[in-house]
């Protein structure tokens, strides 16, 4: 295969060509209530050629990996049609390396997976008041070969595991649900020993049936590490992706490096070089080494996430953040492991002087338009006179990024990473990422409600 790749990369007519070949094996188990509804295996083999001519791209993806030369020819022709200006990608040194997964991937045997999930499902379903459950488990092992016309040739293997458990309670035509998401870079033991958490999950779904809904409006909101991580991802992470910014002059002015976004205790980091997390890797899908990037340091915008193209366009450094979810997509700028760094306050300190506020925990989802973001808590409580008070129905929080980061006025000392999420952008989802934070407090956060 390597010879065919090298040959195809010599095709004439392009400023730059790259080829990516992927093999992937996925196992999936899905439960709905007591029915194990799906047990399936998927095996994939495919690849793509991407060609670059004077600032324009051609991209050809395929399952049949025997015609690399023809695919290269087509990609070059497409790129030539798109060509518009003299422009070079961010320069790199060629890398030749075979990288193996840091941990042994999940075993292929289905029996132990099914046994564990059966146990969790029984815990949920045997809780009185629970109507049904949803469980989705997936694991994958992927081998990627990447090579480009500049001499880089990299093979990487990677394993990923994710699990989502949902308990659904119902009463009098009302339905409430609570979920738990877990993920890892191939380590199955992370999925084990969750019995206690699963029990709590089911009990909370039942408690929600009699919980009141928050009254809509502005509140002082305290986020737990999981939800604050989702907040960091949605509220600021996406805006740090340079492909949103690099071609938009006005946005470049707004996102100028050195601008103050938050108070001096606020540090936000993204980096695939942070080891052992679901967003970790050695090289991105353009063959650029992973880095750890301070997006915000001491409240000030320090850098952003780049591909080779966006880095060159903005005169900044490539950060190794170009990722493609699979061979049928070109790499685009993505987050990896995104988190707010710890500061000094305990949870008690953070809520001590809140007269009336909301304590929002765990995540259900999040989205952003870049300026406006929303993210939803899986669990919420009122805070009254410095104490966590009654349970509320899950809340959706929303804000404007330019105002909200500045409204973070307390940061805890208890950073935790959440590995259960998946990120979506331009039709590529769910991409394995992780995010995290310590507890944080946000003033004047908009909460949807009755």
């Amino acid at each position: 295969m390597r010879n065919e790749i090298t040959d195809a990369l010599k095709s004439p007519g392009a400023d730059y060509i790259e080829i990516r070949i992927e093999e992937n094996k996925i196992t999936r188990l899905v439960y709905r209530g007591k029915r194990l509804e799906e047990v399936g295996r998927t095996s994939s083999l495919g690849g793509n050629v991407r060609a670059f001519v004077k600032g324009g791209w051609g991209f050809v993806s395929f399952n049949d990996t025997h015609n690399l030369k023809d695919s290269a020819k087509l990609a070059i022709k497409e790129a030539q049609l798109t060509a518009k200006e003299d422009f070079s990608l961010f320069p790199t040194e060629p890398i030749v390396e075979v990288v193996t997964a840091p941990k042994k991937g999940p075993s292929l045997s289905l029996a132990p997976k099914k046994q564990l999930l059966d146990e969790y499902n029984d815990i949920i379903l045997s809780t009185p008041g629970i109507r049904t459950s949803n469980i989705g488990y997936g694991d994958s092992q992927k081998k990627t070969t990447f090579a480009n016309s500049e001499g880089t040739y990299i093979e990487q293997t990677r394993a990923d595991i994710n699990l989502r458990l949902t308990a659904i309670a119902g009463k009098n035509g009302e339905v409430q649900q609570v979920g738990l998401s877990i993920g890892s870079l191939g380590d199955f033991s992370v999925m084990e020993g969750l019995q206690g958490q699963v029990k709590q999950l089911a009990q909370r779904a039942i408690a929600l049936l009699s919980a009141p809904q928050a009254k809509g409006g502005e509140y002082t909101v305290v986020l737990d590490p999981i939800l604050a991580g989702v907040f960091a991802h949605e509220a600021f992470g996406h805006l740090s992706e340079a492909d949103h910014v690099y071609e938009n002059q006005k946005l470049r002015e707004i996102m100028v490096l050195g601008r103050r976004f938050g108070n001096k205790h606020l540090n936000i980091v993204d980096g695939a070089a942070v080891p052992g997390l679901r967003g970790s890797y050695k090289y991105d899908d353009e063959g650029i080494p992973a880095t750890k990037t301070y997006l915000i340091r001491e409240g000030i915008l320090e850098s952003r996430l780049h591909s080779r193209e966006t880095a060159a366009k903005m005169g900044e450094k490539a950060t190794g953040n170009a990722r493609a979810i699979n061979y049928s997509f070109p790499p685009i700028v993505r987050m990896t492991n995104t988190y707010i760094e710890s500061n000094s306050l305990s949870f008690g300190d953070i809520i001590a002087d809140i007269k009336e506020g909301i304590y929002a925990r765990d995540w259900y989802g999040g989205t952003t338009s870049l300026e406006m973001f929303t993210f939803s808590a899986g669990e919420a409580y009122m805070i009254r006179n410095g104490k966590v008070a009654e349970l509320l129905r899950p809340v959706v929080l929303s804000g404007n990024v330019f105002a909200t980061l500045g409204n973070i006025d307390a940061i805890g000392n208890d950073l935790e990473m959440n590995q259960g999420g998946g990120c979506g952008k331009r039709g590529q989802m769910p991409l394995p990422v992780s995010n995290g934070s310590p507890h944080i407090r946000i003033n004047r956060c908009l909460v949807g409600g009755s």
Partner: protein
Amino acid sequence: MEEILSQAKKFADHAEVFQVSSKITPVNFEANRLKEIQAKESTSTALRLIKGGKVGFAQANGFIKPKKLVEMAEDTCQFGAEAKFTFPGPQVYLHTATFDSKVSKVKIEDMVQAGEQLIAAIIKHTPSVVCEATVTKGIITVRIINSAGGNASYNKSFFNIGLEGVLIEKEDMLFVGDSLSSCHPITDYKSLAQDVIKQLDLAKTKASLPTRQMPVIFTPRGVASALISPLVSAFNGKTVFDGASPLKDKLGVQVFDKNLSLWDDATLPYQVASYPCDDEGVPGQRTTLVDHGCVSHFIYDLQTAALVKTESTGNGDRRGGMPTPSPSSMVINTGDAGFDDMVKDIKEGLMIDILIGAEQGNILNGDFSGNVLLGFKIENGEITGRVKDTMVAGNVYQLLKQIEAIGSDARWVEGFLFTPSLYCTGLSVASKAG
């Protein structure tokens, strides 16, 4: 495919092979300029088999030896779900038009020109808007064979043109956009340009709303972004069977306004969500879900239908896995109210065009809550400006129990929903301003 089926039959009691191939060409524009041309070809083959009453499943994207695929499926069989259904034998399929050979003949150069002209029309109106656009053509071929003699296949062509623009002034971002899709080539995208220009015009002035309950008009795009997800979930036969749908036990019961009807329709000619047969070889059909406010039926695939002892509604859909019930085209009945008349009726209220985050609430319960990405204040019967920093929260069942008016302005949204504007009352609005 035949080879896979014959090898599978040696092991299994029943077997089915599903194959889908596609060739898709997206032309992408970024920052008002042509950026990238793609050509994507893919083939995937799925094998479902039943042995000893249990279902096994395996899928291969790209080439795989038939024997290997059969082994993978065999391996899952012992753990598989109990098969309640049988594969359908030979069927009579109605002709549902989903293919226009003209689509594959559209030249890339013409797609480039379409995108450039669309962007030019927007820029001419508002020079500082920065647009992304995609013009896509595609051909999909589906074939299903099974051990009961079932044999179905069809081709589908599709063409899509979509635009998203962002207009930035100081730190205010305005997002506008829309899309058109069809099984025919789209040559007239003036309506798309006009819709986007109308959004830009309406958003020129800003307004703010107080925090309280108020009447609301959901435009067709507003219906799609705020209301449709909870309904799709609630009418899924699987959600109903699990007891997780609020519409469980509501068949025949009036749950919605008596003027509201909703149906799923896979037979609409040249609609991108149409098909002559679903992904299990069951003929596509029109299924009434809400008839004048009464819950009429749910949507099913083979397995779910068998669990409930009913028939599949031809809604078996695969997304890289086993079939599961999923809608084709959803249609809400067109009403008789003019949009301007609905606006005139409101003293103070909100018009929602795009809501973000609405799917993150407890949609099983019909709850939705989100940020108004594109929405306008209505004051004394007129649209007075764009609102920002505004959240809404509501429940689909409460809102649609009594609808003030149903618009006469039905249109397709995202190629899967045909809906008019809906005028409702009592939506909770929370805003920074009030």
